[in-house]
């Protein structure tokens, strides 16, 4: 009989686990996600940095230390197989004084212990050579050449698409209420859409991890939201930073970083504000928070663009576990529960390694795993019209003229790409945005919103009044203009 695996949460961790488990015979994998799309929690609102692995003390946070470095290495192949945008651009941790120089020395040593390759302390002149926009006040830097950046939401989408191709099922807008235990074993999940039976429940519910774990009787940890706020600048903004720039870290955070995104936007943030346990959806930005981010960022980089030129500000919540380290555990009781939570930074980097760790736990719990013969390792990325050469563009338009119809002028997104996104499962405006970049440019959707709405109506056959920005409760329009004219 097949072994049924239910994963709670289609964030980067849940998605990576799902994809990994589809490699094996006899596992029926499904993912339950409360949002209207995958990756809409912490996975979409972070720096997108693939850390090299010098940050975490292996004595204090053994899982973070080990899985970060391992994950960093795994992403190379994974990003290639799944065509996820990634850049191995390297990072600099800048020190501005004697105290911070000591911190760098500690980081270097820790990195060596964690097995990070290529770490080096560099002097002021070399900093300027490597990154001409770095602050000239920086006296020394730790250079981590194996650090990279990834598009975290595209990574999540890619993992889920590939998992689905290999048989995993995804239930969107389905809220897991309770992990159900009978006779000291997990038997499934109670959701707002009914009961889902499972032999293993993998709890990858991020910020809600402790609450769900408690429903299964495991309450040896707690999670609190730690909010971070960001500024995002348009692709044409200057300065461009080639590398990710970090300040010397503090215990609670790696600090405000200045980085590029894989699409070439300048991204600045996050601060670290601990919220109450009840504030698990409080992704508001604040004036104070943004102020703080800006002040910190100005130390790192010369000539940041004016603050008001930021095309978007946003905030995300990291799931901060009370003991600090990731919680990746299976239990004697209840058997069948695997917690995969507390994946604060470097959770994104570690995700592929966490997935392997979960596999190991399943084997330890007596699951026999045999690799499938027909497993598809690769996934094709969305067409990115904007990045093609003129000849390639022309060829595509010849095949399908809707590649010649621009929907989002800021990011040069075509009607054909929007259709492709919808075919691949995008059912909301944000889902289209994260797959195509329509609405992610300078004007933040004011030119394309109406067009996307009409396209979604046409392609899905849904009523335009029912189309949402981001799932239940987020309708774009409330009705028709003067509906009485139609009925009288």
């Amino acid at each position, binding site marked *: 009989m097949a072994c049924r695996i239910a994963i709670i949460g289609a964030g980067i961790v849940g998605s990576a686990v799902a994809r990994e488990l589809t490699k094996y015979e006899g596992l029926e994998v499904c993912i339950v996600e409360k949002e209207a799309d995958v990756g809409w929690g912490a996975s979409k609102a972070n720096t997108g940095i693939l850390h090299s692995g010098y940050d975490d003390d292996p004595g204090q946070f053994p899982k973070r230390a080990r899985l970060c470095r391992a994950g960093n290495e795994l992403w190379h192949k994974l990003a290639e197989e799944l065509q996820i945008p990634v850049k191995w651009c390297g990072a600099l941790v800048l020190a501005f004084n004697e105290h911070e120089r000591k911190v760098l020395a500690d980081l270097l040593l820790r990195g060596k212990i964690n097995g990070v390759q290529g770490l080096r302390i560099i002097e002021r002149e070399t900093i300027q050579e490597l990154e001409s926009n770095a602050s000239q006040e920086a006296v020394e830097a730790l250079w981590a050449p194996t650090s990279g950046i990834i598009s975290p939401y595209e990574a999540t989408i890619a993992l889920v698409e590939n998992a689905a191709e290999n048989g995993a099922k995804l239930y969107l807008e389905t809220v897991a209420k309770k992990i159900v235990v009978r006779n000291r074993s997990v038997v499934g999940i109670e959701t707002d859409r009914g009961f889902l039976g499972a032999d293993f429940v993998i709890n990858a519910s991020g910020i809600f991890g402790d609450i769900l774990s408690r429903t299964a009787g495991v309450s040896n940890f707690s999670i609190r939201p730690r909010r971070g706020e960001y500024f995002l600048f348009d692709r044409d903004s200057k300065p461009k930073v080639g590398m990710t720039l970090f300040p010397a870290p503090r215990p609670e955070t790696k600090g405000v970083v200045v980085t590029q995104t894989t699409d070439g936007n300048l991204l600045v943030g996050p601060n670290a504000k601990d919220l109450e346990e009840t504030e698990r959806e409080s992704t508001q930005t604040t004036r104070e928070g943004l102020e703080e981010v800006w002040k910190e960022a100005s130390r790192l980089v010369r000539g940041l663009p004016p603050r008001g030129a930021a095309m978007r500000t946003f905030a995300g919540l990291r799931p901060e576990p009370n003991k600090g380290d990731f919680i990746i555990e299976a239990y004697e009781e209840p058997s069948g529960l695997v917690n995969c939570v507390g994946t604060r930074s470097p959770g994104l980097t570690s995700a592929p390694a966490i997935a392997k760790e979960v596999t190991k736990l399943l084997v330890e719990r007596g699951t026999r795993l045999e690799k499938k013969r027909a497993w598809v390792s690769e996934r094709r990325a969305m067409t990115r019209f904007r990045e093609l050469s003129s000849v390639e563009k022309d060829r595509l338009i010849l095949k399908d003229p809707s590649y010649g119809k*621009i929907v989002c002028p800021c990011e040069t997104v075509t009607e054909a790409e929007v259709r492709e996104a919808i075919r691949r499962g995008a059912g909301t405006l944000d889902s289209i945005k994260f797959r195509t970049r329509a609405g992610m440019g*300078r*004007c933040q959707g*004011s030119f394309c919103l109406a067009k996307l709405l009409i396209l979604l109506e046409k392609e899905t056959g849904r009523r335009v009044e029912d189309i949402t920005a*981001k799932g239940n*409760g*987020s309708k774009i329009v409330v009705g028709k203009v003067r509906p009485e004219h139609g009925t009288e």
Partner: protein
Amino acid sequence: MREYEADVIVVGGGPAGLAAASSCREAGLKVLLVEREEVLGGILPQCIHTGFGILETSEDYTGPEFAEMLERRARNLGVEILLNSYVTQLIYADGKGVLLEAISPRGVENMRARSLIFSTGCRERNAFEIGITGDRPAGVMTAGTAQALMDLHGLLPGREVVVVGSGDVGLIMSRRFALEGAKVKAVVEISRYPGGLTRNVVQCLEDFGIPLLLSHAVVEVRGRKRVESVIVSEVDERQAPIRGTEAEIKCDMVVVAAGLIPDVGLLEKAGAKIDPSTGGPVVNEFLETSLHGVFACGNALVVNDLVDHAVEQGRLCARSAKSFVEGALERPDVWKMALPGENVKFVVPQIFSGRRETTFYARVKSPVRDCALSFKEIAKEIGIRAAMPAEMVRVKIEGTHLSSLGGTLTFEVRRWQKGK
């Protein structure tokens, strides 16, 4: 790949571009008008209110009517029009010719011409650019998007509305929502006076009982999925929110009408000089940008409050392009500069030769009554009954005055001092 060739290419088929293309044809030029949308007219087709063409025709048209007139004229004159054609790149503009690349359902197209007229319009500032914090729910949109939904697609985007900004766009959209039976809870204006014309304040707000909150800002949006309320705060003289004055207004929609910015990314990338005070290119009296043979008009040049001015600028561009194509466009070694002085935000054109009568457009920073536009360099004063930021000041200055100038001409608007 398809190739097009013309004497002049006009990018953008709104009112300025249509007027420019028609005038180019009248001057006997081969002109190609390139428009990215399926229809011509720019923003006009969604502006179903009146107020268009008053100076041009002495009639008061709606946006769609005025657009149709301009389009009919262009078509009758034989302007070659490419719709659904989006210019992605200005490959070069070297003073001898220009080369553009565009994308259309026909394929990737190259377009060559001697001269280029840029009439790409403007874009709206969004909620983030004006520093609104809080949640990011559905129901926050710019006035133009709301207008497109309502008047191009017949869809109502909200029922309880807070409008940010009291420029004409914000005022007109407030009335538009009120006419649909939506409740406009407030229009929130950060400055001490309304940003739009007095006529619009009366007709769009007062007549509909819509409150106008001056010296206030929307500082925060609340609502996880859809807007539930906004936090409004009083602001000080520097327009910074005053702590302790925050109040909540329940609503399901925020309409952002917080200003327009010329959409000139292509020009900027091609190296044209940009004037930070207008957001558009620096031009001379021929409306020629710092790229020789490349001209700009309409809201891509400077955000206009009257479509008639956009049309006028389009025509001037056409005349200039004609001279340029014929090799007769003047290019003095030294340009004189028009400078914004007291209470003036910008002056367009920014540079001029001083050899001919020149039309200048300027905008004041704060409203004044019984005032004068004065130029210290030529000891000239022009009386104005009232000047306000909403209304562009348009003034013609004779060549004789301009030729006698030194290097600069400073525009200042101050209260009329009687007996001076």
